[in-house]
């Protein structure tokens, strides 16, 4: 029961998020709607051209009149082509604007809010945002057209033949009922289907990632067989969903075709004056043909909407996860520190959302000004979380953190940071170091590199350009680069996250002096499971 409520809540939230996001779109969304509506006017022109053209032949009005009306047919269809181009263009533009706005919010939430798993964040940023494309580019304009155009066209048809218009309107009722039924019937099942599809792609990707293990354990056959089973299951389930979906679209099609047929038969009998019941109108060819040509157009917008339904489905599924990324409220900046502070953790608890246990529970520590404190423990013990707390990357759910006796929330302006896999840009080594202080002079950069022992014996020295993957640097050199960055920023606090992980003893020993250099005059916290690094510290805390 609780799970169901939670699911309904999250669905409600996803819809609310989509509605909010739709408001972020610019004028392109309105333009797309306008072009779509104008297409209705062009459809009327097309039907009129046809009707009067055929009438001109029937009444032998001569080639001049025929040419005029066929010219209208030509112009109206060229206009429709142009309008559909404009509408698609504006729709895509609207999707682009909305996606950009949603993406900016997401990026803000990612880079200023609590830390998220890399996979989930990257998926939200790329697949999640891209899943919104069809919703804004196609579904929303289609929904507007479906809401406005049918009634508009029926009203125009009523001018020519009120009874035909009444037939079209009458057929709309079962049509809309079928559509609503289709929506509710297929929606629940297809949501489940959508999630199952995501799980299946996840499963395939996971086994590709674990391919070395699969190969080494000679589990290719069993894995392939398991994947086949999962894929077949999903296919059968999808087919069941589609059966319901297609049945409902068949209903739409049926009522559309039926109303065209009814209009045709009614008009024919009216023209023949053979109707078995009295009618208040007497049609002529022009009117009858006009109504007949217009009839399929009445239902086309709703059929296009039904076809765009899966765009909404995809967007809602994505919104469910995107709505969980909320940009944090801006916090008042802590007053700047005068020098290396004494940092105190008082009963600090940090618990990430959606986890069973807190990553850090009731942790207490005093790191005196200007000293090195080593946090030692196995991975998962919460070392990195403690460092992340100082950068506001982890949620502080209990206790407080004091810097020089003042409670603080976000010390990131006071922090220099170095870790095991630093960010490497496709730029020169100097530019990479200067990331921590873009206004640093060339001499300062070189000094920082020298201080951490980043020897630059490759062509160009500091100007050596690294590639996107950081190629050209060894593991040890990356750590040094990271330390040089930390050295360049004149911050009173230094945080080091596993600075020597995956390095051998010799490389680690060489790095220790660089760490000592970087820690001079700062309050340093280092998370490590290396005893050699811990030996540098004035204080060692085991977690």
């Amino acid at each position: 029961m609780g799970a169901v409520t939670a699911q309904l809540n999250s669905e409600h939230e996803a819809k609310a998020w989509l509605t909010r996001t739709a408001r972020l779109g610019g004028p392109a969304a309105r333009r797309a709607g306008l072009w779509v509506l104008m297409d209705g006017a062009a459809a009327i022109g097309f039907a009129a051209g046809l009707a009067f053209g055929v009438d001109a032949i029937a009444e032998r009005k001569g080639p001049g009149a025929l040419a005029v009306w066929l010219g209208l047919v030509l112009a109206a269809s060229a206009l429709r082509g142009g309008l559909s181009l404009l509408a698609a263009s504006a729709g895509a533009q609207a999707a682009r604007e909305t996606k950009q706005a949603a993406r900016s919010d997401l990026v803000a939430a990612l880079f200023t809010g609590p830390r998220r798993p890399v996979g989930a964040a990257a998926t939200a940023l790329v697949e999640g945002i891209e899943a919104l494309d069809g919703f804004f580019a196609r579904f929303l304009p289609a929904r507007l057209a479906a809401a406005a155009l049918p009634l508009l066209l029926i009203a125009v048809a009523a001018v020519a033949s009120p009874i035909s218009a009444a037939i079209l309107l009458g057929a709309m009722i079962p049509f809309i009922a079928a559509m609503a039924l289709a929506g509710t019937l297929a929606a629940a099942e297809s949501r489940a289907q959508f999630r199952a599809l995501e799980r299946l792609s996840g499963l395939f990707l996971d086994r590709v990632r674990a391919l070395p293990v699969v190969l080494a354990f000679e589990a290719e056959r069993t894995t392939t067989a398991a994947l086949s089973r999962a894929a077949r299951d999903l296919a059968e389930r999808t087919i069941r969903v589609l059966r319901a979906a297609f049945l409902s679209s068949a209903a739409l099609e049926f009522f559309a075709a039926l109303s065209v047929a009814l209009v045709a038969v009614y008009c024919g009998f009216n023209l023949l004056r053979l109707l078995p019941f009295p009618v208040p109108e007497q049609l002529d060819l022009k009117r009858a043909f006009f109504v007949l040509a217009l009839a399929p157009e009445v239902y086309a917008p709703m059929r296009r909407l039904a076809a765009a339904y899966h765009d909404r489905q995809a967007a809602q599924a994505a919104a469910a996860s995107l709505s969980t990324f909320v940009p944090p409220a801006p916090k008042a900046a802590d007053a700047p520190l005068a020098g290396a502070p004494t940092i105190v953790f008082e009963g600090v608890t940090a618990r990430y959302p959606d986890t069973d246990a807190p990553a850090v529970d009731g942790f207490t520590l005093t790191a005196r000004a200007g000293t090195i404190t080593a946090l030692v423990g196995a991975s998962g013990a919460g070392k990195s979380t403690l460092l992340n707390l100082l950068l506001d990357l982890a949620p502080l759910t209990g206790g407080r953190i004091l810097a020089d006796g003042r409670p603080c929330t976000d010390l990131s302006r006071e922090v220099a940071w170095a870790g095991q896999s630093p960010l490497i840009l496709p730029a020169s080594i100097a530019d990479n170091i200067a990331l921590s202080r873009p206004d640093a002079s060339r001499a300062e950069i070189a000094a920082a590199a020298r201080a951490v022992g980043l020897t630059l014996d490759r062509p160009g020295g500091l100007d050596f350009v690294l590639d996107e993957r950081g190629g050209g640097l060894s593991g040890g050199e990356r750590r040094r680069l990271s330390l040089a960055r930390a050295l360049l920023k004149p911050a009173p606090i230094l945080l080091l996250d596993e600075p020597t992980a995956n390095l051998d003893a010799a490389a680690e020993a060489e790095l220790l002096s660089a760490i000592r250099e970087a820690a001079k005059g700062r309050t340093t916290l280092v998370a490590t499971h290396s005893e050699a690094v811990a030996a540098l510290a004035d204080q060692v805390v085991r977690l």
Partner: protein
Amino acid sequence: MSPLDILIREQKRVHAGNLRLAIVSAIGVAVASTALLGLSGWFIVASAVAGAAGVAAAQAFNVLLPSATIRLLAIVRTAARYGERLTGHAAALRALAAIRPALFASLAAAPPAEALALSRGEASARLVQDVDAVETRFVRLSAPWNAAAGLACALVLAALAGWAPALAIAVFAGAALLAARALARRYSAPARTEVQARVGALKDTAAALVAASAELRAYGLAGWAGETLNAKAAALDAARLDAARAQALVQASQAAILGAAVAAAIACAAPAGAPLAALAGLAAGMGIEALAGLALAFDQDGAADAAHARLNEILRHAPRAAGSASPPARLTVLGVTLERGQRLAVLGPSGCGKTTVIETLLGLRGQASPAPRSAFAWLPQDAALIAGSVRDNLRLAAPKATDDQLWAVLEDACLAERVRAAPEGLDAWLGDDGERLSGGERRRLALARAYLRDAPWLLLDEPTEGLDPTTEAQVVERLRRRLDRTGQGLLLVSHRPAPATICATRITLGAPPEAAPNPVRAPKMQAATAD
């Protein structure tokens, strides 16, 4: 014929019944749609002419046949459309359910260097997007039939009014197809290729920046990171806009040509009288509209061709039969020959090629291994796990293992207590790559998995990394007892001294200089002691 084509043809054969039904239905849809509107137009105009000619003519006009036919056509069209969509999609989905595992099998059979070089992003592009592009090949299989039937029906109806309107429709249909094809080649194909490339680039950047959150935060680079990402995303957005415009351009060309075809058909059929002119005009409209499916296929073909080429790259490798070679009695590693049951520790700094030694033995490195994979049970350095439960992960090593056997290896890997503590026990879900476990727990689970495999040699790469000294000692002690019991040989690679203590033979590999471009070098023997 490419491997993908062979695979697709095989699936087409398997699902021939459904596909034929889809084609027949598609033909029914096209004929019924074209005839419905054409006949309706004719009926109205003919009624008007008869009505105008007086009561006698109206009475003589046969209304029953056309009006009944019109209603029949409406029903036929609905049923046929339902049949086409359901059977077409069913065949496509079942075919894909066979093609995806086949791709995985080929990937597994590819030379490891090639398969393992595939990044997660690329793998997703292949197995998800590229295969989706194949789906259209099944779903749209009926599109040419639908187009041909619609067009043929339109031509027949128009021919009732003379050869001229029929010819006009044929000419405009040709123009519509040529225009769609030319526009799709000129605009859609490059735009769609660009979209795929941009998606990949954005993914890479997003992953790199999110991983560096701490650094970004400390150096006040959040804004810069956002701009960097938004700039990459803007390039993708621009490509998407181009692709949408290209598709719209194709559709707009079809709409304009449709109008021209209708006008031309009516003009050419005018001499035959109003009813037949109406018939020809409406038939022309429906005939050209039947081509829409084909035009859409042209629009998507650019991406599909590229996807096919990439899938063929993978499918080149036919899955091999399971190896039956028996494991060799002795193993020579780095010049040391080990008899069954002997233990060798390879020590040395990271980056000196220790892991390479193991991966070469397993045949994951390109060079042929001296022994079949069945000779080895492996704990990889990254302790990679599959998404699934504890049981799923262990069973990878022995699909038929009983729960007792699973608990026994968990016990030996010092993880049984932890697994027992979880309410779901062996069925506890571990998430992607064991993300619900700590680093040390992951490693011990991967160790238990290696223990479960019945192989003469254990290959353990850093088995105690991330463990605290107490657990490390316990793991090493249980490993020693286990080896004494099973008589398995051991090749252990570590930069920590503790696990090496149970090995009689130790080799230390030399450290390469820091900036060596390729860390895999000829091993330098420094000591080979036997006590």
